[in-house]
């Protein structure tokens, strides 16, 4: 009776898992579903390396229960590229030096995707604020923020305004 059968949409595909009541979404993704792009950095919501989208909201999967995801839409870093072809944001991050060791990168990709889905023209301060919950120990952040600014500038120039290709 302590396990829950939960069905949710994971990167567009319905998945059903049987999980103990308090199992975190991160453990379910990594250990049951073998999606290891989301990273375990701290287990207490401090670093953001495990950020995923649940119904388009960025959450720390390391402190969110899988059992709360029933019927909801979960997107992970693996679902933000098109079959491995990087999104505009991901491409900009590769180009601009946003990535060093890369362990925090999936969390940043997800958090920034959430920002760009919400705001078409975020300022530098908006971008820095949106990644407050994400720690990067390598880059000192500047080149991450510049990648986001580049994507915003490109998409505004292209007149698409709204969204980042996902």
């Amino acid at each position, binding site marked *: 009776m302590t396990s829950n059968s939960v069905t949710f949409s994971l990167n567009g595909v319905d998945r059903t898992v049987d999980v103990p009541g308090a199992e975190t979404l991160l453990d379910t993704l990594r250990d049951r579903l073998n999606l290891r792009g989301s990273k375990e950095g701290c*287990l207490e919501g401090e670093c953001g390396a495990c950020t995923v989208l649940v119904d388009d909201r960025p959450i720390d999967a390391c402190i969110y229960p899988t059992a709360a995801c029933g019927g909801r839409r979960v997107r992970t870093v693996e679902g933000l590229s098109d079959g491995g072809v990087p999104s505009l944001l991901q491409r900009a991050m590769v180009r601009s030096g*946003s990535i060093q060791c*890369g*362990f925090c990168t*999936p969390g940043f990709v997800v958090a920034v995707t959430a920002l760009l889905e919400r705001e078409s023209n975020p300022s530098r301060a908006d971008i820095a604020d949106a990644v407050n919950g994400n720690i990067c120990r390598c880059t000192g952040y500047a080149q991450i923020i510049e990648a986001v600014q580049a994507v915003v500038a490109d998409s505004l120039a292209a007149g698409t305004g709204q969204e980042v290709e996902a």
Partner: protein
Amino acid sequence: MSVTIGGTMDRTDGVAKVTGKAQYGVDHVEAGMAHAAVVRSPVPAGRLVGVDVGAARRMPEVVGVVTAADQPDSYGGWVLQDQRILASDQVRYEGEPIAIVVAETRAAAIAAAAAVRVEIEEWEAVTMAKAVAGEGHVIHPDWQSYVPTFGVDHPRWGNCACEVRAEPDGVDEAFARAAHVVEDTFTANRQYQAYLEPKAATASYADGRYILHTATQYPFNVRERVAQLMGVRLSDVRVVGKTIGGGFGAKLDGWVEPLAALAARVTGRTVQVRLSRAEDILTCPMRENATMTIRTALDDEGRMIGRQFTCEMDNGAYSGEMPWLASLPLTVIGAVYKLHGPMRAVCRLWYTNTPPTGAFRGVNGVYLYMAQEQHMDHIADTLGVDRREYRLRHLFEDGDASRTGQVLEQAGILRQAFDRLEERAPWQEILDNLGPNQGVGIAAAVWMTNPLPGEVTIKMSEDGTASLVTAANDNGSGAVSMGLTQIVASTLGLSEGDVRASMPDTDISGYDGGSQGSRTTAIVGTAALEASTKVREQLLATAAGLLEAHVDDIELVDGQARVKGSPSATVPLGQVAAAATFTGGAVTATSSYATPPVPFDAGCATGALFTTMCTPTYHVHLAVVEVDDVTGNVDVVRYVVVQDAGKVISPVGARGQVQGGIAQGIGYSLYESQRIGDDARLVERSLESYRLPLAVDIPDVEVVFLENPDPQTGLGAKGIGEAPIVLSAAAISTAVRHATGRTFNAIPITPEDVMFALQEAEEVR
């Protein structure tokens, strides 16, 4: 499009990392893999009376429990062999491994580890203050029997793990005739490397060999540590690298790998050890805490004519690489600015009941330069001279020597750096425009490029792409995924996608000195340039035959060999490589390189293991800070770096090294307190209380690179990655001193320190 040195390229591991596909140490999976949880000492010091594993063995899914009784009777250590894998009769720090529980799942292993009963007769713990005062028990009663790994022992006794002494003549005389004497005392906290990927390793044992998959910075060092501790030959251990989720020095030595190897040997299973963040913090070989006293004699012209320097450093419970670092003060203090007289120095490393300390980017340079530069400000203020002006008057020039007798041939770059800084950020203009509660600091340094050897093999595939095989690894800096790739691609006329770098494997590649001390691009890059040049020659020779032209007239561009000046006479590189392969055998070449030893004065000190800065680089930093008079918080509002890079191979990567290094330096200077209580326990134990700087806390660093190529190599590159952090505490602490008119002798400078200083100043008023 071919890649060029100094041009931009997309790092070759970028897409894997940005799409979540890169395989880190924690992501490694093998068939039949079991999971380990480590039972750790709950107290910093005591006698291990008993370990009861009975209940744990009976827990569900448990494969086995490993205790000290199962480990070989051998010791290991990078410099001094003072450690074993599991504590046996004594525990020496909180978190020290006592037993390993192996189970089918990580959760089961953790649950069973909690059921292991450990009985310890707790002792009063030895902190550094106690060790220095000669109080407390001797942490290693058998210290005399410990074997130095490289054959040469150094002065040490009881709780003193290493003593370095320089006692030149004339110091007392210099102080006796001094017009002024300036003295300062400083302390520095530990700093946690806080890479985002907690340590992990997976080990198996079969056919008499250990195979480890681990995200290590230094595979050959891990191989050595596992071999020492398991009592086997080096070649009985194979280490295969994984993508590294950051290391910054803490993943140079074997810490989790020996645990995994022992557990694999005892249980017969493939075993993965993965630390939680809490365990990682508790056991990480952090940058050591230290105290320093610096005292300088000045003559009536304000010249420094003599100095005394003492430095006490916390070794923690085991030595790691620390005995080397104990002599680094000799290469820092008294360099950069001319000291026209002798320097007496005593540097000691103390065993304490705290986690072993170790390397963190910039090692002790960060606090040594902080001390030297704050002291320079103090001297300038004492003399009533502008701080920048005083530095310029006494700056090293070409050929000046550090205290170990190393002649710094290119030290004149320092003045070049000050000049470039002045163009970028004119000193007087900054002083005139400072806002309320703002201050500016300036600092200069010489730093090094680690000289250890590296090897590269280039193999051409018959399709015209190149494999870059090396045990050098990319710690994230891009040294392999950009730097080496760029060197090889530009030599062979390839695009970045056509050069494939291997992951490190000690069975496959020649010795590599690890990702440390900014060495990879400079050292392994030199080997890569040589190896790819040899391959290029083979390709040119074959292409000359195919194109019926003279070798000298052929160039390799855009994946093709072509006759210079006649663009239609081309042949794809694949065709050249295939022709060469099937006529003369595989097209491949291997080169290795190590920096030649640097001459120094062997009589400069006793106990000095680390005496020179190989391939020195020169640096000047400027920081502007603003102090919040409500909270005492300090904000870095501007930061400028002028750095000698030799030659910039990858501009995007080079800038990232500086920006990231300064961010860590800002953390060290202002945010990252890692205190040790009087009970020898760490005070900050999670990422909530150990504050890593966030995007909102870090300014965009302004970077100016100076290119003075290394005359020793064809490549000309010098180390870039480590140095940026070295001056940050120096620049920031002098800026805070300027903003507040108060000296802050402890790093990090906390809001509390600043607030209490502000309060004191108000009371005086």
